[in-house]
């Protein structure tokens, strides 16, 4: 179980590194830290880097689980402009408890087609098939199910849309997002509703989030459909269908000092039949987790 070993090693290392700090910072106020976590100062660049071990399960045939050891958390908020982990936006309307913003961000669907974090960030998909390929020299299609080894390359896309964020109570965040492809790749749309609730406790700050994400047929079909663009036998052809993907996630942060925290994240997402029925897909759910120590620069 290499994953278990790697995770335990990361936690052990984190604990060794951070226990002496903890003793000096015994009076850490969790509630204050939690407030810090939920808001950002305007015109300040916030960079945190977490080191540990994380993994996202693979769902596309031929890929391994996506492992990562370093997780960045970068945000910059102006009065209205914002950058937040790859999302760039502009707030049109700001109220005490709500905000309406235009935004653009990288579509993360592409990350399922690579099993290296650098491949994800630099757009280097696993697949080496760049376009339509002829049948094998033997005269027929190799009877192999579609995988990243024999399908056409799926490109990364950039989406843009509008989001509304509402904060009905302390630590409660409700968000509604409508988004459309602007790079003419998947040519589809997605929409999401999410509710998150923070819970400060003596054991650290927890944040629970529930999401429902609708993905249009065009989006699903571009990434998970199988057609003549792919080098597979026609009996594997599949037309993707729109899906609603529920997801649950929990985030945990245990402050050790002003700059150091232990962080943990877990996310479980149901892919929906329109995706899971694709012959490219080997599972109907995906999990992501990370455990490590974060340092605020």
């Amino acid at each position, binding site marked *: 179980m290499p994953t278990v070993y790697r995770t335990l090693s990361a936690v052990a290392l984190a604990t060794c590194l951070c226990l002496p700090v903890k003793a000096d910072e015994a009076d850490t106020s969790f509630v204050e830290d939690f407030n810090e976590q939920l*808001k950002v100062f*305007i015109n300040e660049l916030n960079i945190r880097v977490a080191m540990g071990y994380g993994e996202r399960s693979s769902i596309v045939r031929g890929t391994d689980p996506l492992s990562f050891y370093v997780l960045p958390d970068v945000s910059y908020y102006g009065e209205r402009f914002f950058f937040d*982990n790859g999302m760039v936006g502009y707030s049109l309307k700001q109220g005490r408890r709500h905000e309406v913003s235009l935004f653009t961000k990288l579509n993360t669907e592409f990350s399922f087609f690579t099993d290296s974090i650098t491949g994800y960030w630099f757009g280097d998909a696993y697949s080496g098939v760049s376009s339509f390929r002829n049948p094998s020299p033997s005269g027929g299609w190799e009877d192999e199910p579609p995988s990243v080894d024999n399908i056409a390359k799926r490109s990364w896309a950039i989406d843009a849309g509008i989001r509304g964020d509402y904060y009905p109570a302390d630590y409660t965040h409700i968000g509604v997002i409508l988004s459309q492809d602007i790079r003419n790749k998947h040519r589809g749309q997605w929409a999401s509703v999410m509710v998150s609730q923070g819970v400060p406790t003596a054991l650290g700050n927890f944040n629970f989030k529930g999401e429902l994400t609708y993905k249009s047929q065009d989006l699903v079909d571009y990434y998970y459909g199988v057609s003549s663009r792919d080098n597979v036998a026609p009996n594997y052809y599949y037309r993707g269908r729109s899906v609603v993907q529920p997801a649950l996630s929990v985030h945990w942060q245990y402050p050790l000092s002003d700059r150091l925290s232990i962080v943990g994240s877990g996310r479980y997402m149901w892919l929906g039949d329109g995706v899971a029925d694709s012959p490219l897909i080997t599972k109907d759910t995906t999990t992501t987790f990370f455990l490590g120590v974060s340092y605020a620069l």
Partner: protein
Amino acid sequence: MRYSLITILAAATLIASNALAKQQDVPLPHPQVDELLECTEPLCLWVQPQICVTDNAPAVCKETVSVNWRSEEPLNTCLAFDEQVLACWRRESSGSWLGELTWFGDEILVLFTVDESDLTAEGEWRERPRRTSRQQFLSSLDVLASTEMQIQSLFPKARRRLGSPWSVF
């Protein structure tokens, strides 16, 4: 607007306060308005404090606020804060209100005229159908005077984060 020359004389005392020291059980002494400021306009409104200085973030002020008004002629009037009516007066030429208010920096304290029929026998304002926004509420009133409750934060301005921390996928 009937009173075009209304002057708002806001005796804005800067009160440096922090989150712990802001709970004031003892009400502020009632200001002797006539002694503090001379009113030469048809209507004067004094609000004290109108600005608070806070060293906490996000900036929120919770203060005991004293409101005084005086008019040349008797008025039927009410005082409202952020769509909430605090007090009303029937045929009075002056009035005062003392109470605790919480503000975030953009709330408006407004003195407005009412018809006598809008007041109950006890002198309270008959609630109108609820307005959907502060602007609609304010535009529905015959405003005599208003003042914005302000905050000066010693901290850099902060806003809520829209994205989820560590959300890279």
